[in-house]
């Protein structure tokens, strides 16, 4: 039926049989599932292989075709890890440094972000500071590694925990400030207006009203900062040697010209990585939200 004069009657879409459509839908669905499984396998297999390797006998590392499942599982590799001198201390170092730098970064960063969100400073300081904090994230830390090393050396902080704690705090600060700034700006100021009228101080409003509301952001930044502090390698290797050494440095130390001690290395690597994975699993909601917040507007 033409509705207006002079316009051709459009061809209608071809209606095919119902079973055709049902089949097409099923097949597409199954193909999608298969592909998803393939992707998941690709993500997982290296990791699983790593863990399985830690239980293999040394002989099983050097076979072709490579062994996937250990035939005679052994805890020998883990025992070898325990035999590494001071290995306990290195784990402790990693934990202390990661925790301390996280604490510092999150507390200092949140406070700074709050001030930037709520206080209008003169001379456009708000924008200047925000941009500067953003810029520090842009270039690789290695670009300032050399003068930084000189600085730490002059302060006598080489191979001390404090050196890395300071370093990682400064790595995490820009991200914490940026993320928490976004969170704070998203909290309606009306909540604090009532408190202002009641005569509270800024610190009281910050700790009692705003922080609890921004808890998801705090969790996300805490976890991400901790992961960075736990995983960091380059500055750890630059700034520590014996006393404040962290586990990533130990692992890298296994790479020698004499070939790799696959077993011990894998075991140590697994021990380093598993806590972080567990932490990430538990906090995945917050973690993912924190990671993607920058990319996607909520």
């Amino acid at each position, binding site marked *: 039926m033409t509705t207006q004069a002079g316009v051709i009657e459009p061809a209608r*879409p071809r209606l095919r049989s119902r079973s055709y*459509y*049902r089949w097409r839908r099923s097949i597409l669905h199954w193909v999608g599932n298969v592909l998803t499984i393939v992707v998941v396998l690709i993500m997982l297999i290296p990791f699983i292989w790593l863990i399985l390797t830690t239980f293999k006998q040394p002989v099983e590392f050097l076979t072709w075709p490579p062994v996937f499942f250990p035939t005679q599982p052994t805890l020998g590799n883990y025992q070898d890890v325990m035999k590494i001198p001071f290995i306990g201390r290195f784990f402790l170092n990693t934990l202390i440094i990661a925790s301390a730098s996280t604490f510092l970064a999150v507390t200092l960063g949140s406070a700074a972000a709050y001030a930037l969100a709520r206080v209008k400073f003169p001379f456009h300081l708000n924008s200047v500071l925000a941009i500067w904090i953003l810029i520090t994230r842009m270039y690789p830390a290695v670009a300032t590694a050399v003068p930084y090393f000189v600085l730490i050396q002059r302060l006598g902080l080489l191979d001390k925990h404090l050196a890395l704690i300071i370093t990682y705090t400064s790595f995490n600060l820009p991200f914490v400030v940026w993320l928490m700034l976004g969170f704070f700006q998203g909290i309606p100021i009306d909540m604090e207006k009532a408190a202002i009228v009641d005569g509270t101080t800024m610190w009281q409003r910050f700790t009692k009203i705003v922080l609890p509301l921004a808890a998801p952001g705090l969790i996300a930044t805490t976890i991400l900062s901790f992961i960075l502090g736990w995983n960091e390698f380059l500055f750890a290797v630059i700034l520590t040697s014996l006393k404040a050494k962290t586990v990533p440095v130990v692992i890298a130390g296994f790479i020698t010209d004499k070939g790799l001690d696959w077993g011990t290395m894998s075991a140590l690597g697994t021990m380093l990585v598993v806590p972080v994975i567990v932490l990430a699993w538990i906090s995945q909601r917050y973690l993912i939200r924190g990671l993607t917040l920058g990319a996607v507007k909520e």
Partner: protein
Amino acid sequence: MANVKFDHVTKRFGNMIAVNDLSLDIADQEFMTLVGPSGCGKSTTLNLLAGLEEPDEGELSIGDHVVNDVPPGDRNIAMVFQSYALYPHMKVFENIAFGLRIQKRPDAEIQARVKEAAELLSITELLSRKPAQLSGGQRQRVALGRAIVRHPDVFLLDEPLSNLDAILRIQMRADLRLLFNRLGSTVVYVTHDQAEAMTMSDRLAVFLAGVIQQVGTPLHVYEQPENMFVARFIGSPSINFISGHLASNDGGYRFTANDEFTIDLPAGIIKADWPAEVVLGIRPEDISLSTADNSIGVQVELMEQLGAETILHTTVGSQKLVLKQEKGTNFQHGENVSLFIPPMQIHFFNPKTEQRLM
């Protein structure tokens, strides 16, 4: 254009039944409105018709073809969404032309048909703009244009007027109806606004909890509501309900409200097999002010002056009664007035089943 047929269609979401054994026939070129409160299943029904959801049971036909499993694009339908759903990154022209480009129609044809639709809706000068630059009313017309240009068998509209301001909404009611009259289309329209449903439809279907309560022309549904829900839903202000019981009286009947007043009723209105306990329904516009014998004394609580008419909220005992009066009525708060309820306008309902008593 085509007719639509729902044949015992059921749709579940998990444990909830959204649409329950729905059977409905919509004739070719009919303007059918699905109306009801939020969550009643009307939008789901529309989505089933569109092919955005598939029924769990039953058959759905468009133009005598069963369309279960057929994807939306192949059903030759067009839909206008409450949010208009315009593609923000495309100009208005491309928005309207989108469906045609998907069908790979020749460019000349696309130009012609888009222009045609734009002229029909008076949006020709907007064709090169982007949706973000348009007002709500303009966006709605673009959404309509996108639907019209495809010459579908059935138009589906999901609360298209809800996002417009009040004045525009009322104006658009008439405009839409005229538009679809001109196109001679089959239209399925979903709304929660009973005034829209009444003024625009050829027939309307009242939904509650996934079940159709009544189907009929607006006037029929208004004058003969089949149950208390329909009576209450259709008509504004809502119908007054008075609980009470019937007893014979002097050759006729007497209705005693649970409070203090009574209404005498002639013999022909009540049937013998009716229960003693009933709910009496009377619409505000049917109540009049009168000091005749059979009147009820009430106290004025509130007056809503609409200018063209006045709505009086009154109470007698614990019973509230709302009535409409013509403009210029003016009472004091607490003033006593007399109301008359004409027996011929009364709707009786069974309080247990909520069904109309005939």
